[in-house]
């Protein structure tokens, strides 16, 4: 039996000590008619056999190591320095529980304190929690923070249409029992200026994405000011990698910054786990959900770290808690902290600039192709939209013949963007690979 250390004689000795002869006698409280089902599961197998099976399954997938990847749309293939996974594999980190016993959990606690600090610096905010599940659920928690801040008296939420479709859907799922009015995302052409017109005295939160789902980078200062003038909170969904070079949302006056931290040292892993970033102003800290690490001292005055402001949380405040979140993304937050530490001040900036320049070069080259044109107007970061002469699925099928993973088909989420492809270019892409993409697209245009 795998992972069970008992020998037969130990088993007998222990059963005797408990006062039973057989395991079956331990389950007297369970209704006899449903006890001990015959499970239809595969037979037990050895580690060797199972690993071979898993290897075969993994090889049935396409992956971004064996292709050239231009697909982004919320999950990005960035370089992950080897250091990151070596630290994640430290058993003392990954086999520990939530740090409820601070005397033997200072490693996790200090790492989370450092994660919080790094997130504050990156987003330009005052406080950060120790993570949410992902960027989408972090946005839903931001909506709930705003509702609580306004004591459920304001029930209108404005979501920009260029927030990731999954994140908007998650907000709607989370809040379906709260009787909210969620507006602003009917049309992807509604920009920040038009969102201002939708703000009124019933608005609790205005949320936008930066860079937005279609790649644009906007100055949200005026929108943030308009939201706050109406008493609403202003939330920016940010890509933290882009903040390596872009102005932090704190400078737009954001009340809450959320985002998905996958681009900071976490492999895409078919969509998860990643980490949900949540930073805010100090005045909202007691309305914030999730764990929080604070600095203090021990009885001898030595600096140490503890979970703090826990009365916000479900294990104390139960039905009145700020959220039900308990398990978070601790290990993924650690990955981001290690990534930001090793990339550092100059590394993250350089990686972000590489992605920016390469994306602009690719956009410019594709824009010259017959049948293709760059849809974006104004500034963008490392993703952009291409208007295509054919359905995106057809183009992608052609690209795959050259081992190129093409962009995201925007028609799935925005009917007005049928035959438009969202292309992501990260620092992993070389000029040569851009030229290969251009050549392959050119063939499509000529077909």
């Amino acid at each position, binding site marked *: 039996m795998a992972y069970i250390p008992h020998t037969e004689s130990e088993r007998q000795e222990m059963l005797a000590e408990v006062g039973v002869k057989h395991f079956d006698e331990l389950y007297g409280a369970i209704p006899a008619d449903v006890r001990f089902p015959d499970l239809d599961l595969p037979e037990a197998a050895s580690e060797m056999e199972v690993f071979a099976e898993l290897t075969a399954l993994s090889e049935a997938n*396409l992956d971004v190591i*064996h292709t050239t990847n231009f697909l982004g749309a919320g999950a990005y293939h960035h370089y992950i320095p080897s250091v990151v996974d070596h630290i994640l594999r430290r058993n003392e980190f990954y086999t520990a529980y939530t740090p409820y016993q601070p005397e*033997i959990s200072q490693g996790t606690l200090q790492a989370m304190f450092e994660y919080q600090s790094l997130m504050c610096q990156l987003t330009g905010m005052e406080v950060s929690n120790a993570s949410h599940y992902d960027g989408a*659920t972090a946005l839903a928690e931001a909506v709930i923070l705003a509702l609580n801040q306004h004591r459920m008296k304001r029930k209108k939420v404005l979501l920009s249409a260029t927030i990731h479709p999954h994140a908007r859907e998650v907000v709607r799922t989370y809040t*379906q029992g709260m009787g909210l009015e969620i507006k602003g995302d009917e049309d992807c052409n509604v920009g920040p200026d038009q969102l201002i017109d939708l703000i009124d005295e019933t608005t609790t939160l205005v949320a936008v994405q930066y860079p937005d789902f279609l790649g644009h980078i906007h100055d949200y200062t005026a929108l943030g000011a308009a939201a706050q003038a109406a008493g609403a909170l202003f939330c920016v969904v940010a890509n933290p990698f882009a903040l390596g070079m872009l102005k932090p949302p704190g400078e737009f006056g954001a009340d809450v910054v959320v985002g998905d931290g996958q681009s900071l040292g976490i492999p895409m892993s078919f969509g998860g786990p990643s980490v949900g970033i949540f930073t805010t102003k100090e005045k909202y800290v007691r309305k914030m959900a999730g764990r929080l690490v604070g600095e203090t001292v021990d009885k001898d005055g030595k600096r140490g770290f503890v979970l703090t402001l826990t009365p916000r949380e*479900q294990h104390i405040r139960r039905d009145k808690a700020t959220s039900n*979140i308990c*398990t978070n993304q601790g290990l993924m937050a650690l990955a981001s902290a290690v990534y930001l530490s090793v990339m*550092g001040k100059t590394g993250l900036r350089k990686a972000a600039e590489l992605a920016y320049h390469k994306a602009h070069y690719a956009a410019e080259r594709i824009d010259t192709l017959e049948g293709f044109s760059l849809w974006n107007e104004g500034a963008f970061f490392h993703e952009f939209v291409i208007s295509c002469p054919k359905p995106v699925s057809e183009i992608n099928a052609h690209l795959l013949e050259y081992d190129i993973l093409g962009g995201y088909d925007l028609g799935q989420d925005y009917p007005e963007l049928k035959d438009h492809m969202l292309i992501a270019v990260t620092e992993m892409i070389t000029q040569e690979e851009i030229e290969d993409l251009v050549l392959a697209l050119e063939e499509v245009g000529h077909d």
Partner: protein
Amino acid sequence: MTEPLIYEISTPGRVGVTLPNVDVPEAGMPENLIRDDLPLPELAEIDVVRHFVRLSQLNYGVDTGFYPLGSCTMKYNPKVNEDAARLTGFAFAHPLQDPEASQGSLALMYFLQEWLKEVGGFKGVSLQPAAGAHGELTGILIIRAYHLSRGDAKRTKILIPDSAHGTNPASTTMSGLEVIEIPSDERGNIDLEELKKHCGPEIAGLMLTNPNTLGLFEEQVQEVIDLIHSCGGLVYGDGANMNALLGVVRPGDLGIDVLHYNLHKTFSTPHGGGGPGSGPVGVLDHLVDFLPGPIVDVLEDEKEEQPPLYGLICPEKSIGRVKSFHGHFGMMVRAYTYMRIQGKQGMRAIADHAVLNANYLRVRLRDVYKVPFDRICMHEFVMEGHWPEAPDVHALDIAKRLMDYGFHPPTNYFPLIVPEALMIEPTETESKATLDAFAEALLKIAEEAKAEPALLQEAPHATPIGRLDEVRAARQLVLCCRPLELDSAAD
């Protein structure tokens, strides 16, 4: 021993990574949107490695020693799981790549769904929820949507036993429903009479943790479930304690309508110092259409030579997506690996040895520590960490003293219905020798408590740092590397 903060070991000009040069013409930048300063630390790779290795050494994990944290199922995390999740085709697959190019991942998810259905007795499973509490929210939203779909809009109340984990009431509130707390009776079961008083047309459902947080299987579980169903409500099962039920009883067979699993408890995926977890939700037939989408299904059956074609589908009346993409795929790979190795035979063995280990410790300790509900328990039990002979020693002191003996303390002060609670869950992966050593330490501590209480009250003595001032942490908030000015809170 303390380790400086990452910012404190930063040196201007130091670099940790090398990156390629720009190989394309540089584009112009929108100057108004470019940041001036990027206040990240500056370190060499070796600085980063040593810093985080030293931090790891201040931690205690399952791989360090015994971790009997009740309700958390801190079992051994098999190493092959970690290797499997890092296979290139899994770790470097894009979640939005064409499903036809993701057949390996989708097949894995499909089988995991099937196996979870089988061990739980359910008709449908969604792998999307990210953690137990996330599964609870999903499940309660499903219950709400079910009643609404039948035009039964007045069912707005959820019954929750007083022994429940705090996530249960919090999840209910988040779903827009109201909590009614039900007391436990003198045998640690749900008080059936009290439950009857509340059953009626406003009840959306009951959240049931079974085995409950006392580690006891509800003796009247069938009556409880039948009662809720008879008044039109549904039963939510908190699957946190599923480890005790594998191959023993299937919650679906008991009539539980919806349940979340914790892959990070029952199915051996690591806890990661707080996460990530994974909280799939299983449902009976009448709730399958409400599951969050997408879920994996077979689109084209297997033909000669051709494997089946897997794809993503969204259930008809889905409550909607609860997370980006497909959930915590990396955790699914680990759980798949574990279930595949354990197989049919392994499931029952897990439960048997988890239950045996808990009962063995209960019996070894009960003469010295009061076990308030002293009957055969499931995978965990609760005892009181307090003696009249040592009135100034509390459960917390015992917990802290255990660290000096090299053990992680049990859960303390939970469940709330037992005073000075110490909640012990050994799991099946611990040997008799480990359990004996732990029992000896607790018996020794009980003697110390009476002879030399200060030894406990000032514990731990052998850890890198002593007891921390939590009051100071909460009163003088320092939440990131620069201290926050308290007076800024007034604006």
